[in-house]
């Protein structure tokens, strides 16, 4: 039979990293080395991850395409499938259908400043871009990262945040919701949109990339506008529910667009033209 588009690659879990309460990162390698060597993706692409016996679920590829030999996904244990993924141990196998969807237009951002704005578990899709950019650091202008979570403990990629914080060529602003701070917390306290406004990144020749829960995105866009960011320079990823990931099962429609095929990356200009179904 010709290629069956629903059959996943078999991946081996090489490493399980505890990120935050209920949040894990799985580092995966292709069981079949040839498939692994032929596999290519771009920052922004997503995947369908299988826990065999439980099903399949959707999230972005959290590692950068510039880091070869593995892919990573970061997820919060929430339902049946993520609970199945959560139970995986190093050496066990799982399924992976990718690369799916479009990507961030990184090549068009060369020479521009970049502002990343992320909330909670939405740092992973952005981290693919951030690492990609940092691996090609001299091709881009200033890099600013504004990242917030509910509590200090809920921040993901704690080691990398430390690394980014120490880099002289990255401005990292971290924040936690009021009440989420610890006595020794050095970062900001407040919600992402207001912390972004306070950080006041320059908007000239700058691209803003926003990822977060719908409510954060809703309040971040007006701040960006106030700071002078143009809609064509503002990007986000939509997170509609999906099953097939390849434009057939019908549930990720936003108006005539399929988040799985036309997205998940959309510019603010594109979003403005879509009905509010996300």
């Amino acid at each position, binding site marked *: *039979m*010709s*290629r*069956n*588009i*629903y*059959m*996943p690659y*078999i991946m*081996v879990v090489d490493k399980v990293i505890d990120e935050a309460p209920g949040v894990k990162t799985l580092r995966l390698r292709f069981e079949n080395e040839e498939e692994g060597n032929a596999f290519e993706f771009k920052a922004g692409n997503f995947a369908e991850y*299988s826990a*065999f*016996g*439980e*099903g*399949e679920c959707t999230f972005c590829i959290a590692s950068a395409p510039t880091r070869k030999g593995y892919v990573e996904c970061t997820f919060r244990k*929430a*339902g049946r499938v*993520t609970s199945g993924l959560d139970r995986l141990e190093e*050496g*066990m*196998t*799982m*399924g992976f259908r990718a690369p799916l969807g479009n990507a961030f237009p990184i090549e068009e951002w060369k020479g521009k400043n970049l502002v990343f704005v992320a909330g909670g578990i939405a740092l992973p899709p952005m981290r693919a871009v951030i690492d990609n950019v940092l691996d090609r650091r001299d091709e881009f202008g200033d890099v600013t990262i504004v990242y917030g979570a509910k509590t200090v403990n809920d921040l993901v990629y704690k080691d990398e945040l430390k690394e980014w914080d120490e880099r002289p060529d990255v401005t990292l602003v971290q924040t936690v919701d009021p009440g989420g701070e610890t006595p020794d917390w050095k970062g900001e306290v407040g919600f992402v949109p207001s912390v972004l406004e306070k950080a006041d990144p320059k908007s000239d020749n700058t691209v803003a990339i926003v990822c977060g*829960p*719908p409510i954060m995105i809703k309040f971040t866009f007006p701040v960006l506008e106030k700071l002078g960011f143009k809609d064509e320079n503002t990007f986000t990823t939509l*997170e*509609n*529910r999906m*099953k*097939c990931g*390849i*434009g*057939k*099962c*019908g*549930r*990720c*429609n*936003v*108006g*005539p667009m399929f988040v799985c*095929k036309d997205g998940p990356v959309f510019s603010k200009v594109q979003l403005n033209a879509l*009905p509010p*179904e*996300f």
Partner: protein
Amino acid sequence: MERLIIKSDNIGTWLAKIIDSVPRVLAPVKDGDKAEFKSIKSADGVDYDSQTTISSVKAAAFPRTETLFAYEKEGMETKLYNVAEDNFVETVIWRARPCDAVGFKPLTSIFNWDYKDELYNQRYDKIAIVTFACTSADKCCFCTSVGGGPGNTEGSDIQVTMIDKEKTLVEVLTDKGEKLVALAKDLFTAAEDSIDKEKALADIPAKFTKEQIHENLAKAFDSPVWKAQSERCLGCGACAFVCPTCACFDIQEDAHGNHGRRVRCWDSCGFSLFTQHTSGHNPRPTQATRWRQRIMHKFSYMPDRLNVYGCTGCGRCSRACPVDMNIAEHLTSIANSSHE
């Protein structure tokens, strides 16, 4: 295209020959006072009276539940098994309606517009469709409003039209159709030019045009019509399940210990869980937004993206609806309204 005549009494004999040589023949069979497509082993018992079956015949190419692949876990490892070739069986669909045959066009577009869905394609490629032109219609039929008609041959391999008690017209439209006629050559004679198919067809006046709907939908997203029309909708999904063009599906796991299969099952945009996120957030939180999606998808998004409409006018959704929502009536009101 070849026009042949068969004696009306000989149709059963022809069908018997087809049953003898084709592994699967699907035809309407009475189920209580209604009919459904079933696999038949004998030419007797085919229902020629019902206007349509309850369900469309899409399941022949897009089964209600189908295996996508199977898996077996052993220790740390997982083995995958692809769907075996013998799952795709040569099939004749007998006494479908013209609106059944055209229904495969949007399905084929959905399953091939980008990624090619070979599970669907392999099933569909093995199907030959014999439609019977409609010599009568019921109050739910509206094929002529969406570009079809009682004698529309699009998508059919053969179309049969009952001209009178003695004579039946057989239009052979494709190579697949030729083969079915060749199974019983002696039963056919060439049709005289005087045989008038049009005269035998049902009269189904058009209520609107699909282009009118498409045009009005462009400005109807925020219209109050969605709430008004869907007020009584139960969200049961019956309309999607009987529809010849609805292709939305779910993917589920059928797990049994260390082995199992991944399955695809029909789903419906009318269900509240269809779009609900794990967080509880739902982009389509009300029945009105889901009803709008149903109509928009079929009459706006599909023509825009796939160049095909997602409706054949078969009227099944109206017949199946437990609260008597009549899609033709609703579409007529959309076609006639201005939402500016």
